[in-house]
């Protein structure tokens, strides 16, 4: 006998969203989360006495507003510290570039930049809209598609056609090229080109010249399609979103067990029967949904020996190499960036002055080395949300690209030197900042993996590239949230459409599970 209709492995945002929809459809759902707080990569943590930070994801710019509304997240405590933030591309000499929605500001922009950007942006948004349509439903299957799938394909096809001949041709042309070439075609300003191409490589193991980066850029643009003219900052850090999601889930009747690690997903004769916890306790359930990444799910939890070889081969071919680290600084005061109006300190600050700068930063990680001069995507959350630091003091949080998963000799040999090179880099833009540091924390890809459980520490639970999206995500045969193991589903960033605090994977998975299990 079981007390659960569904056991859900992992209480990240996708897991909680999936659980809530399932519970609302009448399922008895238990969420098992290894961490001590709900939200997974949407987390807040005190990293130095009195200083808190969104310890993994920091910007909310993709969470589907429909999900916010349907799950009443604002009623359950979600508050905005800031919305529609501008992106500021920092210049060491103080000649910054500011981008907000369609607005561009910067003394080094040319007339061509100013003229091209709005039409470029509108076209990208038309593509992002199409992509958002594809992300809003389960992906069609590669073969054996049924009527619903064909309709989805038709919708996609129609969407493509509705773009019109010119837009469609252009999409076909650019989707397989790279941000570097695309930017060269449109703009003069290195700052602008670099800022936009950073969006194409965030969270991925790619440089601006890598194929797939245009796709990465469009994926990022989906946020704007959802109404985010710039990133938003959650009051209390991303962990507050995790708490709101947990509250909404509990309200729907979901049981959430924190600090509960699943040691194995149990199968019998190709069917899931439940899970075993790290303490040995067994939970029996006819359905298990995993929001852990696919490699962890299949290799770590189900176990390769309990799968057929073809599945094992597919899983072991998933690319999940990360190059993304996180830097957290506790600062005794507000840092001063050269030439930056203090009123802009709470915006998104980016260090990526040139495309070649990002490309060089990427070069290092190809050889498992740390970038000498990394790109950074910086948030100083305490500006918009003073609860994050003691009065008058500040927190700086930066997404750092690129850092290897396993540098030669191990991270402990490199941690101090990389941290100090990051400070040198910041010092270049904000002279005096090093002296303000009263606490620092570097989370390497390996640390992120250890903390949040995603393989390789990968942002998307597996690279987001054309060979690993849509019906190939996470791999053919486990598409549409089902897996080759009967009764086992996936609902995390590793499944369609991918990562980012978006909620779409969890939402789509719940819909699919309800549909399929009703048919069964």
């Amino acid at each position, binding site marked *: 006998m079981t007390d659960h209709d569904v056991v859900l492995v992992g209480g990240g945002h996708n897991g909680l969203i999936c659980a809530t929809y399932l519970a609302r459809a009448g399922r008895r759902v238990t969420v098992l989360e290894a961490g001590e707080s709900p939200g997974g990569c949407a987390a807040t943590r005190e990293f130095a006495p009195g200083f808190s930070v969104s310890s993994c994801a920091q910007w909310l710019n993709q969470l589907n507003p429909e999900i916010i509304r349907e799950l009443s997240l604002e009623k359950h405590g979600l508050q905005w510290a800031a919305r529609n933030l501008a992106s500021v591309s920092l210049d060491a000499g103080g000649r910054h570039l500011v981008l907000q929605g369609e607005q561009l500001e910067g003394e080094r922009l040319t007339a061509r930049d100013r003229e091209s950007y709005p039409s470029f942006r509108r076209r990208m948004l038309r593509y992002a809209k199409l992509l958002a349509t594809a992300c809003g439903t389960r992906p069609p299957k590669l073969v054996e598609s049924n009527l619903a799938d064909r309709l989805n394909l038709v919708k996609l096809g129609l969407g493509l056609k509705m773009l019109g001949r010119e837009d469609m041709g252009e999409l076909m042309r650019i989707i397989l090229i790279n941000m570097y070439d695309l930017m060269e075609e449109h703009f003069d300003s290195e700052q602008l080109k670099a800022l936009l191409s950073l969006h194409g490589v965030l969270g991925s193991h790619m440089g601006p010249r890598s194929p797939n980066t245009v796709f990465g850029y469009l994926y990022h643009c989906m946020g704007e399609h959802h109404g985010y003219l710039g990133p938003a900052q959650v009051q209390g850090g991303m962990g507050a979103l995790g708490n709101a999601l947990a509250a909404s889930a509990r309200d729907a009747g979901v049981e959430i067990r924190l600090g509960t690690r699943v040691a194995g997903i149990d199968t*019998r*004769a*190709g069917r899931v029967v439940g899970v075993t916890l790290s303490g040995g306790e067994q939970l029996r359930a006819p359905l298990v949904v995993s929001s852990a990444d696919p490699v962890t799910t299949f*290799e770590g939890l189900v*176990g*390769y*020996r*309990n799968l*057929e*070889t*073809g*599945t*094992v*081969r597919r899983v*072991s071919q998933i690319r999940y190499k990360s190059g993304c680290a996180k830097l957290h600084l506790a600062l005794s005061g507000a840092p001063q960036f050269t030439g930056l109006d203090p009123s802009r300190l709470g915006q998104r600050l980016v260090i990526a002055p040139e495309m070649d700068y990002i490309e060089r930063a990427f070069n290092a990680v190809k050889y498992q080395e740390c970038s000498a001069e990394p790109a950074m995507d910086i948030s100083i959350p305490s500006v918009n949300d003073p609860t994050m630091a003691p009065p008058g003091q500040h927190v700086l949080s930066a997404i750092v690209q690129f850092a290897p998963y396993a540098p030669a000799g191990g991270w402990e040999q490199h941690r101090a030197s990389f941290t100090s090179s990051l400070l040198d880099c910041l010092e270049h833009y904000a002279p005096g900042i090093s002296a303000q540091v009263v606490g620092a924390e570097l989370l390497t890809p390996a640390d992120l993996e250890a903390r949040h459980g995603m393989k390789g520490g990968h942002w998307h639970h597996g690279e987001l590239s054309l060979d690993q999206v849509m019906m190939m995500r996470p791999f053919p*045969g486990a598409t549409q949230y089902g897996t*080759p193991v*009967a009764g086992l589903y996936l609902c995390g960033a590793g499944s369609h459409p991918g990562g980012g605090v978006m909620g779409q994977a969890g939402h789509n998975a719940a819909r699919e599970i309800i549909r399929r299990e009703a048919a069964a």
Partner: protein
Amino acid sequence: MNSTSDDTMLLTTPFHSRVSRACELNAWGSWKGYTTPKAYTDVELEYFAIRSTTGVFDLTPMNKYRITGPDAGPFLNRLVTRNVDKLGIGRVGYTVWCDDAGQVMDDGTIFHLGENDYRLCAYARATDWLFWSALGFDVNIEDETAAVAALAVQGPTSCAALTAMGLEGLADLKPFGLAEYDFEGETLMVSRTGFTGDLGYELWITPRLAETLWDRLFEAGAPYLIKPFGSDALEIARIEAGFLQAGVDFVPAEEAVRNGRTRSPFELGLDWLVDLDKPLFNGRQALLREREQGSRYRFVLLDVDGNKPAHNSFIMKGRRKVGTVTSAAWCPTAKSNVAFAQVELPHGAVGEELVAEIYYQRELHWTRVLAPCRVIEAPVFNPPRRRATPALPF
């Protein structure tokens, strides 16, 4: 390690000096990268050696994989359709293995050599698939194709010939049993196995002693009219005995390019090799589904009227094409004209009358024969001596 591929210059087996001396016709073929004789002297005489005295076949090119380690058993059980747990030490089992779609990748034999120690003999190169399959298992896989020389010794006097060579007590070895003998200070492994459907054995030895083994065997076997045979004679014998040939009677799943050209074990008449009670093996899910939804094809043995082998024939039911022949031969001992065919279900029930559309050519003149044929239940050659233990004396 074996460093051959199908498109390099052909290799020779450790028996080559002896084989080439005996190969009077100089008729060579290629078998997975090795040069091997199609015939030595006369196909028919070679065939009759298998059926009446003793024939010897060099099977060294057969792909051989040694599988050892604590998970060797579980690894094989996940790999193949049969239940390997039921294969005792010292026993050999015929099996097939499938991809996840339940399509046959290959057939072969598993030798249970000792605790956590197996040899898998395969038609196709399997290293890639074996290594993928090994993820998650504590096993060691070694390609020992070139490291083990092998001879098939087949026919009614084979036991007598081998006993004369010094393999005492061989007569007591059961079909699919294994025995070990000392041979010039090395181990000679003997299995009562073969591809001819007759009494017969296969000998496995280090390549260093291959030539010595050949010489001793032919010396001891002379009074028993021992004779080497090539692949053409084997082809007739295996069809007569009803044995499938990978690459001929089915396309190994990983080699097939076109959709729908592969076959499941059920579609090859190999249901008896599939243990669906095993909780997990490659293809199980798909095969369960096929059991529920039905197969597409049926493998049938046909007894064809006349004596024209139905090579590559269409199989007709009335005016409708319902199948194709994959192997065909006039079988001299059974005196019947046998064909293996793939027919579309529901056709192919035992006793069903069909027609083979046979094309043949005489002096550039093509003729079409519509030969009536019927589905037969069992292979046409299956003598008691194949199984009798102790082996019958001749």
